C-alpha cells in the first residue's frame, strides 16, 4: 500500500463530503425564504440517509466482484471483507471516497424539485433512487460494461451529472410546476449564500475530480489544474454571453458559469491537458447559459436549472472528451485518445452510447419510482402547505425569525 496515495484519497473524501453542504447553500440562496430550511434539509439529509444505505448495500453492489458488468454481488454487504480490495490504497479508502459521491448525487436533484416535495416522500425517493439508479450507473461506468467497452468517465460526468440531471427531469414531470410558476416572481432570497455555496463546491470539486485518480500522482495534479481552469473559463463564458444578452454580468451568472465548467470537466479531468480544460469550460459556460431557455420552451419548472447546468454540462463534458482526450497524458492507452489527439471517432461513439444509455435508464427508472411514490404516499405537497412553505409545514421551523 502507498501511504501518499492513501492520504490523498482520504483527504479527497473529506473534500467531496464538504460539497454537499456547499450545494445546500448554493441552492438554498436561490429559493424563497419560506423554503430555505427545507432545501438545506433535503441536501444535508442525504448525508444521513444515503451514507447509511451506501454502507449497507450500495458499495457492494458497485464493487462486489460478481464477474459481470451490470451489478456487483453481496460480498461486501455491510462493508464486510473490504480489505479484500486492498491494493495501492486500502479498500476502505475507496469506500470513504465513493460514499461521498453517492451522497451528493441525489442531492443534485433537489434543485429541480425545489419548494414542492413532501419530506417523507423525498426520503423514500432518494433512498430508492440511490440503490436502483445511482448504484447501477456507477457500476457500469467505473467497474462494469461501459468501462470495458472503452467509455471514459473520470469523475462522474455520466454517472453523476447526466444521471442526476435526467432524474431531475423525470421527477418534475411527475410532480408538475410550482404554484404560481410563470406568472408570480420567485427571485432568489439570498444570493450571498449562493456565492458561498459556489466557493465550497469549487473547493470540494478539487477532491472530487483529482481524488478520482485514486493516487497522488501526475494525473491527479493535472486534474487539479484542469478542474480549476474549467471553472474559471466556465465563469468567463457564461458572463460574456450573459453580458451580451442582458447587458449585465451577474454574481449568480458567475456562480452558475463556474459550476457549469466544473460539471463539464468532471468526466474529462484526468484525461485532457494543455488548453483543453479552458476550451471545455468556456464551451460549457456558453452552452449551459443558452440551455436555460429549454425549460421555458417546454414549460418545465426546473426551478434552479439542474437540467441546464448538470444535464447539459454533463453531456457537454462527456461528449467533448471524445474529441479532447489525450492518450499521451499520464499513460492513458492510445485506444483512449479522442478525435483531436490521434484517436478515431470510436471514443466519441462510446461516450455517446454511455450518455444515452445512462440517460434513458435513469429517466425510465426514476419516472417509475416517482410515479410509484406519488400513487402510494403522495410525492407533492398540498396546495396549502406549498403556500406556507417547506420550513413551517415539513419541519416546524423557520429559517429567519421576523
Amino acid at each position, binding site marked *: 500500500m502507498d501511504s501518499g496515495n492513501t492520504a490523498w484519497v482520504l483527504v479527497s473524501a473529506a473534500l467531496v463530503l464538504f460539497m454537499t453542504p456547499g450545494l445546500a447553500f448554493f441552492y438554498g440562496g436561490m429559493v424563497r425564504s419560506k423554503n430555505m430550511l427545507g432545501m438545506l434539509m433535503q441536501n444535508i439529509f442525504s448525508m444521513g440517509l444515503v451514507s447509511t444505505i451506501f454502507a449497507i448495500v450500495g458499495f457492494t453492489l458497485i464493487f462486489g466482484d460478481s464477474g459481470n458488468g451490470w451489478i456487483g454481488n453481496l460480498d461486501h454487504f455491510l462493508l464486510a471483507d473490504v480489505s479484500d480490495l486492498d491494493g495501492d490504497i486500502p479498500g476502505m479508502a475507496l469506500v470513504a471516497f465513493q460514499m461521498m459521491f453517492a451522497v451528493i448525487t441525489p442531492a443534485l436533484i433537489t434543485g429541480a424539485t425545489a419548494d414542492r416535495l413532501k419530506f417523507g416522500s423525498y426520503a423514500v425517493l432518494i433512498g430508492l433512487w440511490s440503490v436502483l439508479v445511482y448504484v447501477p450507473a456507477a457500476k457500469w461506468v467505473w467497474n462494469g460494461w461501459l468501462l470495458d467497452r472503452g467509455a471514459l468517465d473520470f469523475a462522474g460526468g455520466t454517472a453523476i451529472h447526466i444521471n442526476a440531471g435526467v432524474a431531475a427531469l423525470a421527477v418534475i414531470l411527475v410532480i408538475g410546476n410550482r404554484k404560481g410558476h410563470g406568472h408570480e*416572481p420567485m*427571485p432568489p432570497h439570498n444570493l450571498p449564500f449562493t456565492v458561498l455555496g459556489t466557493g465550497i463546491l469549487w473547493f470540494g470539486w478539487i477532491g472530487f475530480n483529482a481524488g478520482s485518480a485514486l493516487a497522488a500522482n501526475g494525473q491527479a495534479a493535472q486534474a487539479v489544474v484542469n478542474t480549476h481552469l474549467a471553472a474559471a473559463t466556465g465563469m468567463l463564458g457564461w458572463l460574456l454571453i450573459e453580458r451580451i*444578452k*442582458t447587458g449585465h454580468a*451577474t454574481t*449568480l451568472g458567475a456562480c452558475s458559469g463556474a459550476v457549469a465548467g466544473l460539471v463539464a470537466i468532471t468526466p474529462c479531468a484526468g484525461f485532457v491537458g494543455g488548453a483543453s480544460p479552458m476550451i471545455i469550460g468556456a464551451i460549457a459556460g456558453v452552452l449551459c447559459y443558452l440551455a436555460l431557455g429549454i425549460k421555458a420552451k417546454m414549460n418545465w419548472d426546473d426551478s434552479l436549472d439542474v437540467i441546464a447546468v448538470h444535464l447539459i454540462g454533463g453531456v457537454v463534458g462527456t461528449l467533448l472528451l471524445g474529441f479532447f482526450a489525450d492518450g499521451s497524458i499520464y499513460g492513458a492507452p492510445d485506444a483512449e485518445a479522442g478525435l483531436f489527439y490521434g484517436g478515431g471517432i470510436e471514443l466519441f461513439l462510446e461516450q455517446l452510447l454511455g450518455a444515452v444509455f445512462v440517460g434513458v435508464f435513469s429517466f425510465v427508472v426514476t419516472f417509475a419510482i416517482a410515479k410509484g411514490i406519488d400513487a402510494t404516499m403522495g410525492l407533492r405537497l398540498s396546495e396549502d402547505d406549498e403556500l406556507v412553505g417547506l420550513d413551517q409545514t415539513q419541519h416546524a421551523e423557520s429559517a429567519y425569525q421576523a
Partner: protein
Amino acid sequence: MKLITAIVKPFKLDDVKDALKANDVTGLTVSEVRGFGRQGGHTETYRGAEYQIDFVPKVEIQVVVDDARADLVVDTIAAAARTEKIGDGKIWVSSVDRVVRIRTGEEGDDAL
C-alpha cells in the same frame, strides 16, 4: 397636535434625524416599508429571466408635534430628505385627537 408622516429614501434617514434633533424634536418612530409611487420599481435579472420589482424600499418616519411647530417640522424633513431625484418621497400631516405618555399618564402637549 399633528401627526407628521414622511416616506423618505432610506439613506436620507440620518440626515432627517439630525435636522429634526437640531430643531428640538424630542422623539420619532421609524419603520422600514416598501411601496411605489411615480418612481415605479426596477427590473432584476436572474439567469437571464427578468423580474419586475414593483415595491421599492423606503423609510417611514412618524413624528407627533404641537400645532404651532407642524409646518417647521414638515419643512425641515423636506429640506433634509431632498435629493431632487425621482423617488424622494412624500410628507403628509394629520390631526391627532389624543396623546398619552404611558409612564406618567400626562396627556396632550405635555405628553409630547
